[in-house]
Protein backbone atom coordinates (compact mmCIF):
# COMPACT_ATOMS: atom_id res chain seq x y z
CA UNK A 1 0.00 0.00 0.00
CA UNK A 2 2.79 2.38 0.89
CA UNK A 3 4.24 2.00 -2.57
CA UNK A 4 0.98 2.90 -4.26
CA UNK A 5 0.48 5.92 -2.08
CA UNK A 6 4.08 7.04 -2.50
CA UNK A 7 3.76 6.74 -6.25
CA UNK A 8 0.49 8.62 -6.11
CA UNK A 9 2.13 11.43 -4.19
CA UNK A 10 4.95 11.42 -6.70
CA UNK A 11 2.65 11.63 -9.69
CA UNK A 12 0.62 14.43 -8.15
CA UNK A 13 3.79 16.32 -7.29
CA UNK A 14 5.33 15.79 -10.70
CA UNK A 15 2.18 16.95 -12.47
CA UNK A 16 1.93 19.89 -10.10
CA UNK A 17 5.52 20.92 -10.64
CA UNK A 18 5.17 20.54 -14.39
CA UNK A 19 2.10 22.73 -14.37
CA UNK A 20 3.48 25.49 -12.20
CA UNK A 21 6.40 25.72 -14.59
CA UNK A 22 4.00 26.42 -17.46
CA UNK A 23 3.40 29.96 -18.64
CA UNK A 24 -0.39 30.23 -18.40
CA UNK A 25 -2.09 31.27 -15.21
CA UNK A 26 -4.72 28.58 -15.45
CA UNK A 27 -2.03 25.96 -15.78
CA UNK A 28 -0.39 27.34 -12.67
CA UNK A 29 -3.55 27.25 -10.62
CA UNK A 30 -4.22 23.68 -11.69
CA UNK A 31 -0.65 22.88 -10.72
CA UNK A 32 -1.10 24.46 -7.33
CA UNK A 33 -4.24 22.43 -6.72
CA UNK A 34 -2.49 19.19 -7.71
CA UNK A 35 0.51 20.12 -5.58
CA UNK A 36 -1.75 20.72 -2.63
CA UNK A 37 -3.19 17.22 -3.04
CA UNK A 38 0.31 15.82 -3.19
CA UNK A 39 1.52 17.74 -0.20
CA UNK A 40 -1.56 16.92 1.85
CA UNK A 41 -1.13 13.24 1.11
CA UNK A 42 2.55 13.54 1.96
CA UNK A 43 1.82 15.04 5.36
CA UNK A 44 -0.82 12.41 5.87
CA UNK A 45 1.62 9.66 4.97
CA UNK A 46 3.99 10.86 7.69
CA UNK A 47 1.56 9.38 10.20
CA UNK A 48 2.09 5.98 8.51
CA UNK A 49 -0.77 4.04 6.98
CA UNK A 50 -3.42 2.43 9.11
CA UNK A 51 -6.64 1.00 7.73
CA UNK A 52 -9.95 0.69 9.51
CA UNK A 53 -8.77 2.43 12.70
CA UNK A 54 -9.87 6.03 12.54
CA UNK A 55 -8.74 7.88 15.65
CA UNK A 56 -12.22 7.97 17.07
CA UNK A 57 -12.44 6.51 20.51
CA UNK A 58 -15.46 4.29 20.61
CA UNK A 59 -16.48 1.32 22.64
CA UNK A 60 -13.77 -0.89 21.21
CA UNK A 61 -10.86 -0.94 23.61
CA UNK A 62 -7.70 -0.49 21.56
CA UNK A 63 -4.12 0.29 22.31
CA UNK A 64 -3.11 3.79 21.32
CA UNK A 65 -0.64 2.38 18.84
CA UNK A 66 -3.40 0.65 16.90
CA UNK A 67 -5.16 3.85 15.93
CA UNK A 68 -4.16 5.93 13.01
CA UNK A 69 -2.01 8.88 14.04
CA UNK A 70 -4.41 11.82 14.50
CA UNK A 71 -1.72 14.49 14.42
CA UNK A 72 -0.97 14.50 10.69
CA UNK A 73 -4.68 14.35 10.08
CA UNK A 74 -5.16 17.53 12.06
CA UNK A 75 -2.26 19.15 10.24
CA UNK A 76 -3.66 18.15 6.85
CA UNK A 77 -7.03 19.57 7.83
CA UNK A 78 -5.44 22.91 8.50
CA UNK A 79 -3.45 22.63 5.31
CA UNK A 80 -6.55 21.78 3.25
CA UNK A 81 -8.33 24.87 4.51
CA UNK A 82 -5.38 27.07 3.83
CA UNK A 83 -4.89 25.65 0.33
CA UNK A 84 -8.56 26.21 -0.37
CA UNK A 85 -8.26 29.81 0.69
CA UNK A 86 -5.14 30.44 -1.31
CA UNK A 87 -6.60 28.75 -4.37
CA UNK A 88 -9.53 31.12 -4.18
CA UNK A 89 -7.21 34.06 -3.85
CA UNK A 90 -5.07 32.92 -6.72
CA UNK A 91 -8.11 32.46 -8.88
CA UNK A 92 -9.29 35.99 -8.31
CA UNK A 93 -5.81 37.28 -8.88
CA UNK A 94 -5.71 35.40 -12.13
CA UNK A 95 -9.01 36.92 -13.17
CA UNK A 96 -7.81 40.38 -12.26
CA UNK A 97 -4.52 39.89 -14.06
CA UNK A 98 -6.29 38.68 -17.16
CA UNK A 99 -8.54 41.70 -17.10
CA UNK A 100 -5.85 44.26 -16.43
CA UNK A 101 -3.05 42.92 -18.60
CA UNK A 102 -5.04 41.44 -21.43
CA UNK A 103 -3.16 38.18 -21.33
CA UNK A 104 -3.18 35.04 -19.26
CA UNK A 105 0.60 34.78 -19.25
CA UNK A 106 2.01 34.65 -15.75
CA UNK A 107 4.30 37.58 -16.46
CA UNK A 108 1.43 39.78 -17.54
CA UNK A 109 2.73 40.01 -21.09
CA UNK A 110 3.23 37.64 -23.94
CA UNK A 111 6.85 36.57 -24.36
CA UNK A 112 8.59 38.28 -27.26
CA UNK A 113 8.82 35.86 -30.16
CA UNK B 1 -45.93 35.76 12.49
CA UNK B 2 -45.71 34.00 9.21
CA UNK B 3 -47.42 30.75 8.69
CA UNK B 4 -45.10 27.88 9.52
CA UNK B 5 -44.92 25.25 6.79
CA UNK B 6 -45.81 22.21 8.80
CA UNK B 7 -44.70 19.39 6.52
CA UNK B 8 -41.33 20.94 5.94
CA UNK B 9 -40.78 21.52 9.63
CA UNK B 10 -41.74 17.98 10.44
CA UNK B 11 -39.52 16.64 7.71
CA UNK B 12 -36.62 18.63 9.06
CA UNK B 13 -37.21 17.41 12.59
CA UNK B 14 -37.32 13.88 11.22
CA UNK B 15 -34.12 14.48 9.36
CA UNK B 16 -32.51 15.78 12.51
CA UNK B 17 -33.55 12.78 14.53
CA UNK B 18 -32.49 10.37 11.83
CA UNK B 19 -29.11 12.01 11.54
CA UNK B 20 -28.49 11.92 15.24
CA UNK B 21 -29.92 8.40 15.50
CA UNK B 22 -31.28 9.45 18.85
CA UNK B 23 -34.73 9.91 20.26
CA UNK B 24 -34.77 11.98 23.43
CA UNK B 25 -36.58 15.00 24.73
CA UNK B 26 -33.50 17.08 24.24
CA UNK B 27 -32.96 15.94 20.66
CA UNK B 28 -36.61 16.48 19.72
CA UNK B 29 -36.66 19.89 21.34
CA UNK B 30 -33.47 20.95 19.70
CA UNK B 31 -34.69 19.56 16.39
CA UNK B 32 -37.92 21.52 16.57
CA UNK B 33 -36.11 24.66 17.56
CA UNK B 34 -33.58 24.29 14.79
CA UNK B 35 -36.17 23.42 12.17
CA UNK B 36 -38.34 26.41 13.10
CA UNK B 37 -35.36 28.73 13.02
CA UNK B 38 -34.30 27.51 9.62
CA UNK B 39 -37.75 27.47 8.15
CA UNK B 40 -38.37 31.03 9.24
CA UNK B 41 -34.98 32.23 8.12
CA UNK B 42 -35.47 30.98 4.59
CA UNK B 43 -39.20 31.57 4.36
CA UNK B 44 -38.74 34.18 1.66
CA UNK B 45 -36.71 31.77 -0.44
CA UNK B 46 -39.73 29.51 -0.85
CA UNK B 47 -42.48 31.74 -2.16
CA UNK B 48 -44.48 28.86 -3.64
CA UNK B 49 -45.56 26.19 -1.20
CA UNK B 50 -47.03 22.84 -2.13
CA UNK B 51 -50.57 22.14 -1.07
CA UNK B 52 -50.57 18.45 -0.32
CA UNK B 53 -53.67 16.32 -0.45
CA UNK B 54 -54.02 12.56 -0.41
CA UNK B 55 -50.55 12.10 0.94
CA UNK B 56 -51.23 8.42 1.58
CA UNK B 57 -51.09 7.81 -2.17
CA UNK B 58 -47.35 8.25 -1.92
CA UNK B 59 -46.96 4.75 -0.54
CA UNK B 60 -48.27 2.80 -3.56
CA UNK B 61 -46.41 5.26 -5.72
CA UNK B 62 -43.20 4.38 -3.97
CA UNK B 63 -43.86 0.68 -4.27
CA UNK B 64 -44.50 0.97 -7.97
CA UNK B 65 -41.38 2.97 -8.34
CA UNK B 66 -39.24 0.40 -6.56
CA UNK B 67 -40.48 -2.35 -8.85
CA UNK B 68 -39.94 -0.19 -11.89
CA UNK B 69 -36.41 0.63 -10.78
CA UNK B 70 -35.50 -3.03 -10.66
CA UNK B 71 -37.12 -3.79 -13.99
CA UNK B 72 -35.62 -0.86 -15.77
CA UNK B 73 -32.20 -1.71 -14.39
CA UNK B 74 -32.52 -5.12 -15.91
CA UNK B 75 -33.60 -3.62 -19.20
CA UNK B 76 -30.72 -1.21 -19.30
CA UNK B 77 -28.27 -3.92 -18.34
CA UNK B 78 -29.49 -5.94 -21.27
CA UNK B 79 -28.98 -3.08 -23.64
CA UNK B 80 -25.54 -2.31 -22.30
CA UNK B 81 -24.42 -5.89 -22.49
CA UNK B 82 -25.92 -6.29 -25.94
CA UNK B 83 -28.40 -8.95 -24.84
CA UNK B 84 -31.31 -7.52 -26.80
CA UNK B 85 -31.93 -10.62 -28.92
CA UNK B 86 -30.54 -9.54 -32.27
CA UNK B 87 -32.37 -6.29 -31.99
CA UNK B 88 -30.68 -2.94 -32.02
CA UNK B 89 -31.93 -0.81 -29.17
CA UNK B 90 -33.66 2.29 -30.50
CA UNK B 91 -32.95 5.29 -28.38
CA UNK B 92 -34.51 8.69 -28.76
CA UNK B 93 -36.84 11.32 -27.38
CA UNK B 94 -40.50 10.81 -26.76
CA UNK B 95 -43.13 13.43 -26.00
CA UNK B 96 -45.77 12.84 -23.37
CA UNK B 97 -48.84 15.04 -23.04
CA UNK B 98 -48.84 16.43 -19.55
CA UNK B 99 -51.65 17.33 -17.23
CA UNK B 100 -49.60 17.83 -14.09
CA UNK B 101 -48.55 21.46 -13.66
CA UNK B 102 -47.76 21.84 -9.96
CA UNK B 103 -44.05 22.53 -9.69
CA UNK B 104 -43.57 20.20 -6.76
CA UNK B 105 -45.47 17.48 -8.51
CA UNK B 106 -43.28 17.95 -11.55
CA UNK B 107 -40.23 17.78 -9.32
CA UNK B 108 -41.35 14.45 -7.94
CA UNK B 109 -42.05 13.25 -11.45
CA UNK B 110 -38.51 14.25 -12.39
CA UNK B 111 -37.20 12.25 -9.46
CA UNK B 112 -39.16 9.25 -10.63
CA UNK B 113 -38.02 9.55 -14.23
CA UNK B 114 -34.43 9.95 -13.19
CA UNK B 115 -34.62 7.11 -10.73
CA UNK B 116 -35.67 4.65 -13.40
CA UNK B 117 -32.73 3.93 -15.65
CA UNK B 118 -33.60 4.02 -19.31
CA UNK B 119 -35.55 7.25 -19.08
CA UNK B 120 -34.27 10.70 -18.52
CA UNK B 121 -35.95 14.03 -18.24
CA UNK B 122 -35.40 16.24 -21.24
CA UNK B 123 -37.66 19.08 -20.26
CA UNK B 124 -41.19 20.41 -20.31
CA UNK B 125 -42.45 22.46 -23.23
CA UNK B 126 -42.79 26.19 -22.54
CA UNK B 127 -46.55 25.96 -22.35
CA UNK B 128 -46.26 23.17 -19.78
CA UNK B 129 -48.39 20.75 -21.78
CA UNK B 130 -45.79 18.32 -23.08
CA UNK B 131 -43.09 16.44 -21.23
CA UNK B 132 -40.14 15.21 -23.25
CA UNK B 133 -38.15 12.23 -22.11
CA UNK B 134 -35.11 10.49 -23.51
CA UNK B 135 -35.41 6.71 -23.65
CA UNK B 136 -32.63 4.27 -24.13
CA UNK B 137 -34.80 1.67 -25.70
CA UNK B 138 -38.07 2.72 -27.26
CA UNK B 139 -40.46 -0.18 -27.71
CA UNK B 140 -44.18 0.20 -28.09
CA UNK B 141 -44.18 3.90 -27.44
CA UNK B 142 -47.90 4.54 -26.98
CA UNK B 143 -48.34 1.70 -24.55
CA UNK B 144 -45.46 2.94 -22.50
CA UNK B 145 -46.84 6.49 -22.36
CA UNK B 146 -50.22 5.26 -21.27
CA UNK B 147 -48.75 3.14 -18.53
CA UNK B 148 -46.50 5.96 -17.36
CA UNK B 149 -49.38 8.40 -17.03
CA UNK B 150 -51.46 5.80 -15.33
CA UNK B 151 -48.96 4.81 -12.74
CA UNK B 152 -47.29 8.10 -11.94
CA UNK B 153 -48.92 11.22 -13.29
CA UNK B 154 -52.39 10.38 -12.12
CA UNK B 155 -51.25 9.71 -8.58
CA UNK B 156 -49.17 12.87 -8.48
CA UNK B 157 -52.12 14.86 -9.72
CA UNK B 158 -54.12 13.58 -6.80
CA UNK B 159 -51.44 14.41 -4.32
CA UNK B 160 -50.46 17.85 -5.55
CA UNK B 161 -53.46 19.29 -7.37
Amino acid at each position, binding site marked *: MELVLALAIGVLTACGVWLILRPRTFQVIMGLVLLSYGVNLFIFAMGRLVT*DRPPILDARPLEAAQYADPVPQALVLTAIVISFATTALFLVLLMAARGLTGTDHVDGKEPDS | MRQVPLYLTLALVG*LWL*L*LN*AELSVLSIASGVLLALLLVLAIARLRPVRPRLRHVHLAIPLLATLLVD*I*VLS*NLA*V*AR*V*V*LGLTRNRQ*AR*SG*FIDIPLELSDPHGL*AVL*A*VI*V*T*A*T*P*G*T*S*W*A*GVAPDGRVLRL*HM*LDIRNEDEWIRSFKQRYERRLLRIFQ
Partner: protein
Amino acid sequence: MTTAVLPLWVTIPGTVLLALAGVTTLIGSLGLLRLRDFFSRMHGPSMTNTVAAGATLLASMLVSSAVAGRPIIHELLIALFVSVSAPLAAIMLVQAALYRNKARHSGDVTTDGSSST
Protein backbone atom coordinates in the same frame (compact mmCIF):
# COMPACT_ATOMS: atom_id res chain seq x y z
CA MET C 1 -10.96 -7.44 7.56
CA THR C 2 -12.79 -7.17 10.82
CA THR C 3 -16.03 -8.53 9.48
CA ALA C 4 -15.38 -11.99 10.98
CA VAL C 5 -17.68 -11.28 13.92
CA LEU C 6 -20.77 -10.65 11.84
CA PRO C 7 -23.73 -13.03 12.19
CA LEU C 8 -25.04 -15.07 9.30
CA TRP C 9 -28.25 -13.06 8.93
CA VAL C 10 -26.00 -10.27 7.91
CA THR C 11 -23.37 -12.01 5.87
CA ILE C 12 -25.65 -14.00 3.59
CA PRO C 13 -27.86 -11.16 2.36
CA GLY C 14 -24.86 -8.88 2.62
CA THR C 15 -22.88 -11.02 0.24
CA VAL C 16 -25.69 -11.07 -2.27
CA LEU C 17 -26.27 -7.35 -2.02
CA LEU C 18 -22.62 -6.50 -2.41
CA ALA C 19 -22.27 -8.79 -5.39
CA LEU C 20 -25.33 -7.20 -6.93
CA ALA C 21 -23.95 -3.75 -6.27
CA GLY C 22 -20.64 -4.67 -7.83
CA VAL C 23 -22.22 -6.15 -10.93
CA THR C 24 -24.64 -3.30 -11.51
CA THR C 25 -21.93 -0.71 -10.98
CA LEU C 26 -19.78 -2.46 -13.49
CA ILE C 27 -22.55 -2.76 -16.04
CA GLY C 28 -23.53 0.83 -15.49
CA SER C 29 -20.00 2.01 -16.07
CA LEU C 30 -19.79 -0.17 -19.16
CA GLY C 31 -22.86 1.59 -20.38
CA LEU C 32 -21.16 4.89 -19.81
CA LEU C 33 -18.19 3.67 -21.74
CA ARG C 34 -19.83 1.74 -24.58
CA LEU C 35 -23.10 3.35 -25.54
CA ARG C 36 -23.11 5.38 -28.71
CA ASP C 37 -24.43 8.82 -27.97
CA PHE C 38 -24.42 11.05 -24.96
CA PHE C 39 -28.09 10.71 -24.11
CA SER C 40 -27.82 6.93 -24.12
CA ARG C 41 -24.67 7.04 -22.04
CA MET C 42 -26.54 8.91 -19.37
CA HIS C 43 -28.58 5.81 -18.59
CA GLY C 44 -25.58 3.74 -17.58
CA PRO C 45 -24.57 5.66 -14.46
CA SER C 46 -28.15 5.87 -13.32
CA MET C 47 -27.90 2.13 -12.67
CA THR C 48 -25.21 2.95 -10.16
CA ASN C 49 -27.41 5.61 -8.62
CA THR C 50 -30.28 3.24 -8.13
CA VAL C 51 -29.75 -0.48 -7.72
CA ALA C 52 -26.06 -0.41 -6.88
CA ALA C 53 -26.51 2.39 -4.39
CA GLY C 54 -29.58 0.76 -2.95
CA ALA C 55 -27.91 -2.61 -2.56
CA THR C 56 -24.84 -1.13 -0.93
CA LEU C 57 -26.95 0.92 1.42
CA LEU C 58 -28.95 -2.09 2.42
CA ALA C 59 -25.78 -4.03 3.08
CA SER C 60 -24.46 -1.14 5.09
CA MET C 61 -27.67 -0.95 7.09
CA LEU C 62 -27.46 -4.63 7.84
CA VAL C 63 -23.89 -4.44 9.01
CA SER C 64 -24.26 -1.31 11.09
CA SER C 65 -27.42 -2.62 12.67
CA ALA C 66 -25.61 -5.79 13.58
CA VAL C 67 -22.69 -3.85 15.02
CA ALA C 68 -24.86 -1.45 16.97
CA GLY C 69 -27.24 -4.15 18.11
CA ARG C 70 -30.27 -2.07 17.07
CA PRO C 71 -31.77 -1.15 13.75
CA ILE C 72 -29.81 1.60 12.06
CA ILE C 73 -31.71 3.21 9.24
CA HIS C 74 -30.01 6.49 8.66
CA GLU C 75 -28.62 5.11 5.39
CA LEU C 76 -32.08 5.87 4.07
CA LEU C 77 -31.07 9.48 4.12
CA ILE C 78 -28.42 8.80 1.57
CA ALA C 79 -30.95 7.12 -0.65
CA LEU C 80 -33.23 10.10 -0.23
CA PHE C 81 -30.52 12.63 -0.99
CA VAL C 82 -29.27 10.74 -3.99
CA SER C 83 -32.69 10.37 -5.47
CA VAL C 84 -33.52 14.02 -4.91
CA SER C 85 -30.26 15.45 -6.15
CA ALA C 86 -29.70 13.14 -9.11
CA PRO C 87 -32.50 14.72 -11.21
CA LEU C 88 -30.89 18.12 -10.85
CA ALA C 89 -27.63 16.90 -12.30
CA ALA C 90 -29.41 14.89 -14.99
CA ILE C 91 -31.72 17.68 -16.08
CA MET C 92 -28.92 20.21 -16.31
CA LEU C 93 -26.74 17.79 -18.23
CA VAL C 94 -29.43 16.97 -20.74
CA GLN C 95 -30.16 20.65 -21.24
CA ALA C 96 -26.48 21.37 -21.69
CA ALA C 97 -26.12 18.58 -24.18
CA LEU C 98 -29.20 19.71 -26.10
CA TYR C 99 -27.97 23.27 -26.23
CA ARG C 100 -24.48 22.33 -27.23
CA ASN C 101 -25.62 19.91 -29.89
CA LYS C 102 -27.74 22.66 -31.34
CA ALA C 103 -24.87 25.08 -31.18
CA ARG C 104 -22.48 22.59 -32.71
CA HIS C 105 -24.80 22.08 -35.61
CA SER C 106 -24.69 25.79 -36.16
CA GLY C 107 -20.95 25.29 -36.05
CA ASP C 108 -19.47 27.51 -33.39
CA VAL C 109 -18.80 25.34 -30.39
CA THR C 110 -15.80 23.12 -30.11
CA THR C 111 -16.21 19.68 -28.71
CA ASP C 112 -14.22 20.16 -25.57
CA GLY C 113 -16.16 22.81 -23.81
CA SER C 114 -13.72 25.55 -24.50
CA SER C 115 -16.18 27.61 -26.43
CA SER C 116 -16.78 30.04 -23.67
CA THR C 117 -13.71 29.41 -21.59
